[in-house]
């Protein structure tokens, strides 16, 4: 950013982003290169949902999350002399390092040390094959040096989530020990390729994605449309778990509360010692999607199932909803006492490499359509028509419904409906009973035998003065609300001074102006 804006009125936190999303999953967990190619094709056909800079040569960000392709990585690691062992016995970190050689080497060294300190073996680095020549000049200027780092799974650690939990701690420690690198993913199950691309550059930039041996049963993709062109590779999606189309409007409040909650959260899966390493949960420099992802990731790593975490952060309207069961309502009420909704238009896809889930905001403000094909593929996207498909092989054409979820479990080889997932979690504990014996409503409290003191006329008058009440407020505004149950209507705008320039007393409230979307 130039000098002008630094001195001016722009603030980076004003930035918004939005996008197109898609996913291709083989429900039976059958891996193929076709899944990856199809997912890339989806994002390429969502070009109109992606943003470009003023010159039209640099994109706002495109990315893909896939399972780790053992077939591919065992081949390339062999070429690099890295012995990674069997499937899921290693974790891969994707790294955006600085181009500066010295800084890069320092960062790499730092990472290696952290891995060892966490009791694991670092296997080696692989420079990711890329084609920078295709990039727009803004993207090239701030292009990181992209590497993959391989970590061996300790024998005593179980494959999957348990190993990923250890890798999570490593990443959090690294993130707090280094400030010039970014880790798009570090996991034994998933990997993220992303950057400041135009939609078709993702495929051409990363040669890995073009390799026939690069296979996956799950792929989620994202194209970003930002209201700004502040160059950034990190801000592209996918994040570690999610791709997100939409905005979290309550982000400031959510993040404040997450910060405040850190001490009272308790820990399930992470040890006390590990907890101190991963805090703070939320990186407040990130975008709203990244902060949502931070929180989701933390909850999962600390023992909460991924679909459950998504459910409590983005609840459907439950309070007055008579189309859901009492158990589900009680479940939501129970969690509402601890977590406020992350609210705003949102369609979110998440995956840990075994499941792929999708959830839509309570008002259904983002499009998410999906097809299920007779060969076991599920194709989800912001739009239909993104892939050419044979209509004769389509079994179902559906959409995500407002506040509802969809879950593909490739281990169980099936699709779970919203009702099934929610009933499952809602019946795990006797939430209704707990609420009944713990939650108190105002009407349950006994009215004491006491009198509320009334003010004398003189007291009232003095208080009115002290608090700066005006005649209009007394006679018009409070009167109107007490009379009609609604606020007074006016017209013809404002032609009076702003609070700070007014010669009259202005309560502090008037120094604050409401924002709107």
């Amino acid at each position: 950013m130039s000098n002008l804006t630094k001195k001016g009125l722009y603030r980076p936190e004003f930035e918004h982003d939005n996008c197109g999303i898609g996913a291709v999953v083989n429900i039976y967990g059958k891996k193929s290169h076709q899944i990856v190619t199809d997912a890339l094709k989806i994002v390429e056909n969502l070009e109109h949902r992606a943003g470009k800079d003023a010159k039209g040569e640099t994109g706002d960000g495109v990315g893909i999350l896939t399972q780790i392709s053992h077939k591919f990585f065992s081949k390339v690691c062999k070429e690099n002399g890295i012995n990674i062992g069997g499937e899921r016995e290693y974790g891969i970190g994707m790294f955006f390092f600085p181009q500066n050689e010295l800084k890069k080497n320092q960062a790499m060294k730092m990472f290696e040390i952290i891995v060892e300190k966490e009791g694991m073996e670092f296997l080696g680095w692989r420079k990711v094959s890329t084609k920078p020549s295709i990039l727009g000049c803004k993207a090239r200027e701030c292009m990181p040096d992209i590497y993959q780092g391989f970590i061996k799974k300790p024998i005593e650690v179980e494959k999957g989530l348990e190993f990923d939990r250890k890798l999570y701690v490593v990443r959090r420690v690294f993130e707090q020990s280094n400030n010039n690198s970014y880790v798009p993913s570090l996991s034994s199950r998933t990997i993220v390729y992303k950057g400041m691309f135009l939609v078709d550059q993702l495929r051409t930039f990363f040669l890995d994605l073009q390799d026939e041996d690069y296979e996956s049963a799950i792929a989620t993709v994202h194209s970003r449309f930002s209201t700004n062109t502040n160059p950034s590779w990190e801000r592209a999606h996918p994040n570690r778990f999610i791709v997100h189309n939409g905005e979290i409007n309550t982000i400031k409040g959510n993040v404040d509360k997450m910060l405040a909650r850190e001490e009272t959260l308790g820990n399930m899966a992470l040890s006390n010692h590990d907890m101190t390493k991963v805090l703070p949960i939320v990186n407040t420099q990130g975008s709203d999607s990244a902060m949502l992802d931070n929180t989701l990731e933390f909850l999962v790593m600390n023992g909460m199932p991924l679909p459950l975490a998504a459910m409590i952060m983005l609840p459907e309207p439950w309070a007055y909803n008579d189309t859901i069961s009492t158990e589900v309502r009680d479940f939501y009420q129970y969690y509402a006492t601890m977590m406020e909704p992350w609210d705003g238009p949102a369609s979110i896809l998440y995956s840990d490499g075994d499941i792929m889930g999708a959830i839509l905001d309570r008002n259904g403000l983002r499009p998410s359509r999906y097809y299920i094909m007779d060969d076991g593929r599920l194709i989800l996207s912001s739009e239909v028509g993104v892939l050419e498909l044979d209509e004769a092989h389509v079994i179902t054409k559906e959409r995500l419904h407002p506040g509802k979820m969809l879950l593909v479990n490739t281990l169980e080889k099936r699709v779970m409906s919203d009702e099934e997932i929610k009933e499952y979690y809602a019946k795990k504990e006797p939430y209704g009973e707990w609420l009944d014996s713990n939650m108190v409503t105002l009407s349950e409290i006994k009215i004491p035998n006491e009198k509320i003191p009334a003010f004398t006329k003189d007291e009232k008058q003095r208080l009115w003065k002290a608090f700066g009440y005006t005649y209009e407020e007394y006679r018009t505004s409070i009167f109107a609300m007490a009379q009609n149950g609604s606020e007074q209507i006016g017209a013809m705008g404002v032609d009076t001074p702003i609070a700070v320039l007014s010669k009259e007393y202005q309560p502090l409230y008037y120094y604050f102006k409401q924002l709107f979307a």
Partner: protein
Amino acid sequence: MLEEKPENCQVLKIENPILTDLDMLKIKTMKKPGFKVAVVPTVYFKSTPIERVLEQLFVQVDKAYREGANILILSDRGVDENHVALPSLLAVAAVHKHLVQTKKCTAMSLIIESGEPREVHHFATLLGYGACAVNPYLAHATIADLVENEILNKDYYAAVEDYDHAILKGIIKIASKMGISTIQSYQGSKIFEAIGIAEEVVQKYFTGTVSRIGGITLTDIAKQTDEQHSKAFDPLGLDMDLSLSSLGRHKMRSQGEQHRYNPKTIHLLQQATKEGDYNKFVEYTEKIDSENTGFLRSLMDFNYPEKGIDIDEVESVESILKRFKTGAMSYGSISQEAHEALAIAMNRLQGMSNSGEGGESDERLESAGTDCDRSSAIKQVASGRFGVTSRYLVSAKEIQIKLAQGAKPGEGGHLPAGKVYPWIAKTRHSTPGVSLISPPPHHDIYSIEDLAQLIYDLKNANKYARISVKLVSEAGVGTVAAGVAKAGAQVILVSGYDGGTGAAPLSSIHNAGLPWELGLAETHQTLLANGLRNKVIVETDGKLMSGRDVAIAALLGAEEFGFATAPLVTLGCVMMRVCNLDTCPMGIATQNPQLRKNFIGKPEYVENFMLFIARQLREYMAKLGVRTIDEMVGRTDLLKKKENLSEREAKIDLSAIIGQENIYSREENIFNSKNIYDFKLEETKDEAVILSQKDMREGIIKGLKRERTVKLTNTDRTFGTLLGSQITRNHPLGLPEDTITIHCEGAGGQSFGAFIPKGLTLDLCGDSNDYFGKGLSGGKLIVKAPKEAKYNPDENIIIGNVALYGATSGEVYIAGMAGERFCVRNSGATAVVEGVGEHGCEYMTGGRVVVLGPTGKNFAAGMSGGIAYVLDENNYLYRNVNKELILMEKIENKADQEELKNILENHVKYTGSKKAKRILENFEEFIPKFKKLIPGDYKKIIQLSSKFMEQGMTAQDAQIEAFYASLGSKN
């Protein structure tokens, strides 16, 4: 939280965050295991330094926490001679911040008991900065006083309940402006910008809030609180005047707040423009421009160069006038006389007038290009989409998308039933005497890529028009503007919060949005930094009232300028501020035929105003040494802060706005048409495959039957719209049914068939995306599954969300299901579909919708016209219908049955729907399973007018009679 255990949900649940005094008493005295309540006073001894007061407060809060309190009540009860109350907002924000920082905020809930809050905005800030609930004891005592003095003739408890309800309703509205749907998430969300508070105060106590121009310090806050306290409790114990003073925050009062429009300035302006007297105008602007008016620009001064230039070297008045516009005011909110006067004046001057969101009558659309051109050059597209037809769009020179409106940013419009006279209803395609709601958001814009899509749609609907997007100044507007520029808009209007003529809740008029100075400067800066500034024209408006105002706007980055209140004043407006009541004495903001006779305005007055502004602007330009507006744009170095300001004014820091060196070249600072966004319309299938054929072009011009077949995918967006616009251009009223038919295969992209006119039929075999049939203007749309499909079409989604948004006429047949918000704001199209998602037929004002399957929740919410027939085989519909405005009936009437049958026969004919076939074959059996949904008011009006018609009146007269009859009186 991670561990699932019963104690986690040990909370006190409150239904309404506004607590009555009794609620408060209950909480204070509650004795329930697991709960501990602590009351911490926020009153302090007079003259204690405020920092110490706050520190003391934190100590007490910490103590309460240590003692196990989980409900914390901050209370300012006990204000007296030596006890001053902390401003409640400061107390709440500071304590909340403290709790967040010390990680206690989820363990303790904050309740504020205060005498200070009384208006909606007060409560919104308290909740927004961390309070869970508020007890406004003095506001409640005020209600008791109103009741005692018999000003309010109502039971005290009922009045308090209504007051609390009004407050809550207001807060929900404020939250929904940010897209927040629960109070729980609004609480602590800090969705405000501070203006006029010193940075350090904001950082310390209102952390995370944007504050960009500095302002008063903590000491100033303490001082003003103390001064106010002394007005209630005289330090010398003297008797004092305790009567409430009139401040005139909204309506002008003789004492109290300064108003820029006051009887003196209004009179001068009217005289000047009526008599064409420039000297009087100068006299008026001297008053307007005085720094007492308390605008941000009042603190600015021109930084004149040593030598100006000769005024003859400055760009001519005529050329400047092309950059002037009048503000968007709908026909409906203002009278035909006033609306046309503005259009005529601006057309004569070659400036532009704005239609507003109420559509435009055919007669006026026809007058375009004639000697007496009454058609508005700018056609607005707002969330209500009233009267937005293909013809309306084709007639525009500029199409403006209203994302927000200065008077009520973030809110929709509302035209009360009494103003919906028959002639208004006609241009809006609605029913007379039935109130009209513009939904707050555009249902096709929830994010930036959606806006890009709407811009693309409108460009297709009229490729010659420039597309403009109207934003309201707020923190971050520049970033939004950058997104808008990237989305292809050619004009970006940044409106000030203070502008606007529309009716809105007072809290919204005064407390939402920012002055344009800030928004405009931010927009210019952000666009420049992103290399986007020269791709767009930046326009501003908001109480632009003098040549000086316009000159400052140009220097801050504006190239075009809008005026609304001032032209209305020249036409006679005396700022009665009763626009919402239909009682405007000057015949401006009223439809009442009697009052409209009082209209004394003439287009010439508006012309004089514009000429004077331009003339005055040129004088400034000469002194500033600039020849053209283009040379001025963004030259903030030509502005400086005034000297000799008061202490308070001096604290305002304008350095982020003015006086900066502009490091960008002139070319980067101003719009250049060679940088216009390329929509690549020539690559669309409409152009490349259909209109490129001579045979087709000829068919359109001569109205001959033509057919084509094309293959589509999702990247073929807005298919059919360009073709449709070509038909409208040649035949403003459309062509006979099915003149041009396009058979499509595959997936229709977004906005398939948007705005297509009568005579065009799109027959799609496959499925389609969001915004299908947007603004349908008479065309026909058919969608069916391909023959080879094995799935059951009536159980599968083949159409996306928000189909037929703002459709005004036409026919639609869908053999399959559609997503959310089907037929939202439909005002005349007939549509058949075999199942819909949530919010179906929302805000509908006309037309027929037949649903042959399930509906989602909230069906027919806000629906005020038209009829929906729904097949309700499982009697499930009653749960999903929003019953606020709707009557649910059986279809007993023969005419209705006939109508339904006809529609279904067409459905079978066009789509081959198996479901519809089955229904028709067993029609008698199925009829009882259908429900007819009709809005109550709408039904009443229809019945009234048919009654009058039976008495022998013409349809038009019957409508007028029915309108008056429904209002219960004839004025």
